[in-house]
C-alpha cells in the first residue's frame, strides 16, 4: 500500500486473505465493517463502506479471476483522524483499460446481468477511489473515507 504522510498516525491495521469465491463477498464486507467499528462510524458510513468492499471483492471474483481459482487480499488501515483506508488486491487478469472500466454502466459481461455500476458505487460511497492494474498481474483498488463528514439527511 502506498504510504502517505498520515501513515505514522495509523492506529490499527487488519489484513485478510480469502479464496475468490462468491460466498466470501458477505464475509469480507462483514469483517471490514466489524473492524471499522472501532472508529465509531455512523450507520450511513458503515453501510457505504460495506457496499464499496462488496463491489471491490465481487470484481476480483467475477472479473479478475473469472470465477476460477484465486485469492484476494484486503488490508484495512485505521488512522487517528478517523480515516479508513482499504486496499483490495488480486493477482488476476488485470484491467486493460481502467478508465473505460470505471465509466458508469460499463461492463464486459452483458449476458451476466451486470449493472456496470461497481466502480461508480465505490467512487460515490467513498471519498477516494484509486485503481491501478497491470494486465496478467492483477489489480489494486484503494478506497478511503474519512468518517464524521457525512452530510446526508439519513
Amino acid at each position, binding site marked *: 500500500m502506498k504510504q502517505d504522510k498520515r501513515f505514522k498516525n495509523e492506529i490499527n491495521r487488519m489484513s485478510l486473505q480469502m479464496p475468490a469465491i462468491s*460466498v466470501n*463477498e458477505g464475509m469480507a464486507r462483514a469483517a471490514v465493517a466489524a473492524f471499522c467499528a472501532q472508529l465509531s462510524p455512523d450507520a450511513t458510513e458503515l453501510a457505504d463502506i460495506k457496499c464499496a468492499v462488496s463491489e471491490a471483492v465481487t470484481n476480483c471474483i467475477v472479473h479478475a479471476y473469472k470465477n476460477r481459482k484465486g485469492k484476494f487480499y484486503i488490508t484495512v488501515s485505521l488512522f487517528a483522524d478517523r480515516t479508513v483506508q482499504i486496499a483490495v488486491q488480486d493477482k488476476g487478469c488485470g484491467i486493460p483499460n481502467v478508465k473505460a472500466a470505471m465509466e*458508469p454502466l460499463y461492463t464486459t459481461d452483458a449476458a451476466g*446481468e451486470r449493472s456496470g455500476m461497481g466502480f461508480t458505487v465505490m467512487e460515490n460511497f467513498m471519498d477516494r477511489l484509486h485503481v491501478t492494474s497491470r494486465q496478467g498481474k492483477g489489480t489494486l483498488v484503494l478506497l478511503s473515507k474519512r468518517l464524521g463528514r457525512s452530510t446526508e439527511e439519513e
Partner: protein
Amino acid sequence: MFKTEYHFEVKKRDWLLVVRLFGEIDHHGAVTLREDLDRLILKERPRRLVLDLSLIEFMDSAGLGLLMGRYRLMQDIGGVMVLSRPNQRIMKILRLSGMERFMEIEGVGAKGEQEDEAR
C-alpha cells in the same frame, strides 16, 4: 457453511403478485434469487409485480442488475414491476444508477414490520 441467506414470501391476488424479499442481495445470492424469481414470474405471469424490499438489509450493484433484469422480464410479458418500501440505502444506489427515474417506486422508507392492509 456461510451463505448469503435470502428467501422470499409470495402473496397473490388476481393479477397482482407481491414478493417480499429478505436478507442481503449481492452477487453471491443474486444467481439463485434470479432463477427463483423468474420461475415464479413465468408461472404466475402477473400484470403487476410488487417487489417488497422493506426487509432487505444490504444491496449492492448486483442487486441493481437483478432488479433491471426482472423489470425487463415483466415488460416482456406485458406487465409492470413496482419496487415497494425500499430503505434510504437502497434509494441511494437506485438514484446513483438512474433507475429511480423510470422505475415505479412506492412507500420509500416505510417499515417492513407494518402489514399493509391494502393488499
